[in-house]
């Protein structure tokens, strides 16, 4: 026994030097590789900032596009479009997504639960352009025209897998004791899910939602065949006109949702391919706006998490 102890101690000193050297090498290596991995990130950010920076003026955000050659103008239509389509996508994706996740979490081993999980995984892997084509087939073709509605549907389908997965994971994280506590008081299952499990999982669900919206807002392919794009979209005019014409709110909304609409990624895609330098410059500007949008959404998500954490501590 003592012999082993001596051997270990004797080896110790030799190994110590070797350990120190190995440590230093690994540290240097991982540091180097980290820097290499970060290069593309900073390169992209830098490039976009430089190329798009000059297009960022207040007018960029508040004005509709001006005809070529006139200079100036903005992408207000695209911003409105992105917001409107994202809003519709949220409306279409959240209810079925969350409810489906509740079902899958409660009944994981039923045929429907298994099918749901399998289907979600498959849907998550479907290319976004295929989803766009699908949106065309089920909304645009029957309706006969492109619309924000169709765009919302396509984006909703895109967001669905993420929402279902995140919600299901968050529900699973809720301790079973919470459910038992509610049931032991005599609450039925649905009330337990609604009043106890859902609020408990809400944090994670909202985070998942915010992240999936951030992604969906930046998608182009699904909107190609559904929203199409519309440089003449003017929300203010529609609303003012509607009020002046004594239209009901449904009619006004109908006019907003039922026509082709643009979005920031779509605009970028279009402008970047045009042979006109000022449009290309504006494309870079849109790229910068998109990046900022993603950044802001992520920050909101994190701030939200921190606020909820603080409130919990009481």
């Amino acid at each position, binding site marked *: 026994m003592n012999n082993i102890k001596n051997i270990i101690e004797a080896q110790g000193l030799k190994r110590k030097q070797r350990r120190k050297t190995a440590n230093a090498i690994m540290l240097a290596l991982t540091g180097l590789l980290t820097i290499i991995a970060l290069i593309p990130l900073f390169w992209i950010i830098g490039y976009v900032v430089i190329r798009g920076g000059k297009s960022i003026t207040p007018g960029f955000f508040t004005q509709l596009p001006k005809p070529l050659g006139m200079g100036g103008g903005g992408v207000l239509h695209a911003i409105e479009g992105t917001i409107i389509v994202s809003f519709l996508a949220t409306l279409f994706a959240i209810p079925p997504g969350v409810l489906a996740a509740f079902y899958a979490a409660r009944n994981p081993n039923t045929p429907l639960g298994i099918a749901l999980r399998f289907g979600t995984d498959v849907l998550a892997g479907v290319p976004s352009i295929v989803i766009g084509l699908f949106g065309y087939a089920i909304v645009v073709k029957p309706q006969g025209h492109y619309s924000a509605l169709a765009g919302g549907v396509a984006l909703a389908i895109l967001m669905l897998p993420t929402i279902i997965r995140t919600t299901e994971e968050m529900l699973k994280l809720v*301790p079973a*004791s*919470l459910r*038992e*506590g*509610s*049931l*032991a*008081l*005599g*609450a*039925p299952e649905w*009330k337990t899910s609604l*009043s*106890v499990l859902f*609020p*408990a999982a809400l944090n994670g669900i909202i985070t998942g939602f915010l992240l999936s919206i951030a992604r969906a807002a930046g998608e182009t392919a699904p909107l190609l065949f559904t929203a199409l794009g519309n440089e003449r979209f003017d929300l203010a005019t529609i609303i003012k006109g509607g009020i002046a014409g004594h239209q009901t709110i449904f009619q006004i909304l109908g006019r907003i949702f039922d026509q082709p609409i643009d979005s920031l990624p779509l605009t970028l895609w279009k402008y970047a391919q045009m042979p006109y330098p000022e449009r290309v410059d504006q494309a870079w500007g849109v790229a910068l706006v998109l990046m900022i949008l993603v950044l802001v959404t992520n920050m909101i998500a994190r701030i939200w998490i921190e606020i909820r954490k603080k*409130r*919990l*501590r*009481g």
Partner: protein
Amino acid sequence: MTITYLSRETMPKDEQDHPVMVKVEDLNVFYGKFKALSEINMQIQARKITAIIGPSGCGKSTLLRSFNRMNDLTPSARIEGKIYLDGQDMYQRDVDVVDVRRRIGMVFQRPNPFPKSIYDNVSYGPRLYGIQKKRDLDDIVENSLRQAALWEEVKDKLGVSGLSLSGGQQQRLCIARALAVQPEVVLMDEPASALDPISTLRIEELMHDLVKDYTIIIVTHNMQQAARVSDFTAMMMIDDKRSGRMIEFDATNTIFTNPRDKRTEEYVTGRFG
């Protein structure tokens, strides 16, 4: 030689005038094919504390959860026999399980307050049963928190999350939450095992106060706690088919000073391996 009788604990089962709150008759509980409990027979007296003790895995929790039909939540669970609450068989077809769970409340081993405010935690139950007016809910919340000996500590911060309380306070919050629906029986599954010694003693003191109004059934690993707190003790053990059985059921004083069954003796003296 004549023998003069000096003293012997009178067995309260002989007390004919004390009402029985819960009666278990030939209870067998199955999980699928596995028989978890065999031939359980016992009578729980009203407004007394009955403790259920026994080695790990002997079915104490299964028995406790049979009282408020929480075993129904396990899909493969099945019971034979009857459990009467105040004379009414709780497992009959037409019995509303929601009503059973209102009349028989439960406090769990690990405190499990909802991630809501203290007020919302306690008012959750009454709201389920249709009590909506703020004044009524305020009264119930205060009453329940007082009964759980928590009111003074939280009366100024009812809006704060229940999770921000200490372990012992959380458990008392769970007790208040259970009391808020005016149960007749309160089940406690090792209520203090996750708490520090002082909180444990507080909960035990609380039980002494609560038993004036409620019938309490407690499952505990801690024999000294069972001895300190309960009026009656039931000793359970698994048989050779790994099914839980009731070995002995008697006044606590008797179980811990002079139990009849050798197995009970071995368990309470700690000789049980």
